[in-house]
């Protein structure tokens, strides 16, 4: 395959969560532990890669006038499949994050990539772009999940058996301290995400001081 910056640019420069503040609801809700974050990241990746590839394949068949409803229906179908798969193979995890897996369908990051990229580009590039978007979202989810889990419980990968099966029960890494139980609760999600975002801004000061990127309010 020709080296292509599609993947990297979708994952890093246009990171859906940090750079564009898309998909904040699942990001904040499910990032209370690394395992929950990984579960949602996998489900989102399945939906974004599957739907964008299919949309790219069908891009000449979908009439321009009805394209948004078609995209939404395709995304909703993949979301349904992801929900059913999770329910069948990781029920412990499903019980915790079910609502947010079903809500992937309204994650504007996915519809945004379908409209801006997959509906205009050949299948290979759309696949790379979708994989990049999914990787960027996963990166943001897992980072936030790891920071919150360490702060709140002093552990990493607790309850790994919910996602990886019973042999993963011993994967939990305990660091032996609990700093801030608040980090696992709702206020902690907002505060830790705000602090991480500020840290990111501080580290990436090379670029001109931009205020909030003008995200769509969707």
């Amino acid at each position: 395959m020709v080296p292509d910056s599609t993947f990297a640019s979708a994952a890093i420069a246009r990171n859906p969560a940090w750079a564009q503040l898309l998909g904040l609801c699942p990001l904040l809700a499910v990032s209370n532990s690394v395992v929950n974050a990984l579960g949602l990241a996998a489900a989102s990746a399945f939906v974004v890669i599957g739907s964008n590839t299919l949309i790219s394949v069908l891009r000449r068949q979908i009439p321009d006038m009805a394209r948004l409803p078609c995209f939404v229906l395709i995304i909703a179908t993949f979301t349904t499949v992801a929900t059913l798969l999770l329910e069948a193979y990781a029920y412990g995890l499903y019980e915790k994050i079910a609502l947010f897996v079903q809500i992937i369908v309204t994650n504007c990051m996915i519809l945004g990539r379908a409209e801006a990229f997959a509906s205009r580009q050949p299948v290979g590039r759309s696949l790379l772009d979708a994989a990049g978007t999914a990787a960027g979202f996963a990166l943001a989810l897992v980072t936030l999940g790891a920071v919150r889990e360490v702060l709140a419980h002093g552990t990493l990968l607790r309850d790994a058996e919910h996602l990886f099966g019973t042999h993963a029960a011993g994967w939990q890494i305990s660091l032996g301290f609990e700093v801030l139980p608040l980090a696992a609760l709702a206020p902690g999600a907002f505060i830790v995400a705000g602090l991480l975002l500020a840290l990111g801004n501080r580290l990436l000061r090379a670029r001109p001081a931009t205020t909030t990127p003008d995200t769509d309010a969707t």
Partner: protein
Amino acid sequence: MADLALLLIGALLVNNFVLAQFLGLCPFMGITRGYDTALATGVATTFVLTLAAVIAHLVYHGVLVPLELEYLRIILFIVVIAGVVQLVSRYIEATSVVLHQMLGIYLPLITSNCAVLGVALLATSQDLSLLETLVFSIGAAGGFTLVMVLFGAMRETLDHEGIPAPFRGAPIALISAGIMSLAFMGLTGLAG
């Protein structure tokens, strides 16, 4: 009656959709730049959310459950929400120019507001009756509007404060939302 009141207070304040359940964050962070837009979005969302939740309830229990097709709920609810948004925006366009100018541009965005889908999914997964669904969705939408308006007013002030550069924009908004969420946690125990 007491149950319904508890359900309302619970959805409105204790389990506030934005601050405790993380639903509807995109409009919360995106639109609440000022008080007026926050209020308009809140009103439009309340209207659509309540109507969509009731219709979704009727279709779910009237069609999907008898046919044992519950797994199609996500697709169906999305279609219902998009339909309600279209209907409401056509109706407003035809009846009130003022209302259309005020709410027109916010209506299409509601289709992808996850709070609307979230209420419909939560109401059906908890087996709420039609009346309970109505009360629950009014509470949820009211809580959304309340927080949108409070936060909109707060952000107007934040814009004029001397905030360190890395915190400007989204980070300080998130941290303020966290502090608000902390305040709302104080209401835990008020209703079930």
